[in-house]
């Protein structure tokens, strides 16, 4: 009779006690989730590959210090998001010519479609997502694409839940704008985020209890 699938934490313990196949099982179980998170974060297959490898290598290196105080998946997501941040930072430092032209976020938002048909819009979602600042992008991908609870997202990115709520809302509006969905409200009236709203782009004001974007990177 086949055994029930082992818990992640049990696989970690088994690997550390000498079961080589246990690590392969962990990778196999989570590679799709890790790769897709990295792909949405970076927008490039090549970067997603690198980030996936970096994330799993970090997991491999630090597995012996994983004490299980957080769920393994929370830790894995955190490591992956951090690997993406590192890669995006490296890419920003790289000369512009080294970057694939197709992968650059468009300077101007794509033209607004005739009607708000979300199925046709979804084709541009990835491109639009790259125009949303990383800290907001990460929260949206984890919550809206990967269906993680706000509390779990908060644990992954290392900010209070209130900050997750705020980043979610501002990030979604920024994404809609990048997709060409303009606000239909009256111009001139300050939005919920008040003075943070600037004419040229979406407002990314955060709650007062929010950690700054730089704290989005948390060492595992």
């Amino acid at each position, binding site marked *: 009779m086949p055994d029930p699938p082992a818990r992640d934490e049990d696989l970690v313990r088994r690997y550390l006690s000498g079961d*080589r196949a246990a690590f392969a099982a962990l*990778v196999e179980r989570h590679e799709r989730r890790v790769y897709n998170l990295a792909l949405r974060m970076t927008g490039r297959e090549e970067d997603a590959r690198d980030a996936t490898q970096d994330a799993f290598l970090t997991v491999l290196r630090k597995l012996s210090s994983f004490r299980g105080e957080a769920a393994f998946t929370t830790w894995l997501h955190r490591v992956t998001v951090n690997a993406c941040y590192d890669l995006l930072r490296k890419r920003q430092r790289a000369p512009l010519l080294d970057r694939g032209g197709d992968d650059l976020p468009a300077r101007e938002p794509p033209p607004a479609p005739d009607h708000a048909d979300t199925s046709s819009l979804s084709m541009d979602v990835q491109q639009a997502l790259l125009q949303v600042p990383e800290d907001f992008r990460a929260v949206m991908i984890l919550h809206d694409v990967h269906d993680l609870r706000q509390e779990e997202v908060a644990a992954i990115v290392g900010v209070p839940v209130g900050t997750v*709520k705020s980043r979610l809302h501002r990030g979604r509006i920024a*994404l809609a704008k990048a997709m060409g969905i303009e*606000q239909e409200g009256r111009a001139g009236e300050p939005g919920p985020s008040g003075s943070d709203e600037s004419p040229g782009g979406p407002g990314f004001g955060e709650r007062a209890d929010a950690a700054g974007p730089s704290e989005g990177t948390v060492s595992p």
Partner: protein
Amino acid sequence: MSHPEDLLADYVDGTLAERERAVVDTHLEGCARCSAEIRQAETAKTALSELEDVPVPFGVTGPVLAEAGRRFERRRGVAWERFQWAAGLAAAAALIVVVALNVGGGDARNAATPAATGASGGAGAAAGAEAASPGVIHFAGIEAQRNVDYDDAGIQAVAAEAADAVVAAEETKAPQVAFASAVQDSKERTSLAKDCVQHSGIQGSQDVLIRLIEAEFEGTPAYIAVFSEGPGAGQAPDHIVVFVVAKDDCRILSTASQRIPPG
């Protein structure tokens, strides 16, 4: 106007309690800006939820698993070498007994025979008896080299590498566990490969199996068996012979040899 900013994400998620939802609904009736933002956020959320997972391209996690294997073998290698040290002591004691038994017969070659059989047939005290011989490499198990395709030059390189390992073993005057870092932890596959090697009839009575690789030879799945060959009688081996046999029917695909320079 104060806006219920901290409730808007949950409003779009549909996770607000009824009372909070009513608060937002009332606000939205009088706030066009928030209403517009809610519509934008809903559009964005829907678009994100429609993004589909893509399959992981081939080979993404391969390097990670390879690194995991290397790390694992390094850890395991340390433990194995410690075990070998202890086994070496036991083997030295066994050799004294064997030599003592042969003193009357005068044919010291007999002492080498169980060592050769032991190496081809498996572990145990007989295999341990060769440990005190100079230039002896302990066979540690099969090495699976996935996606490695050897040709004749590659096989010759394997022979040369083995000769170097024997020389190194002679210089240290101690039994060596060469190639152990790459060894797979699979007794079943080791014994399967050994059966195939024996079936091919390539192993001579003085040949001692020191390495076994599972790989491909010019596209054919194959076992590569590396033997040290010598005059026996506890003397150092003077040749390395390498045979390549097909995994499916154990036929000989190729061979190479390398002289071991005398120490």
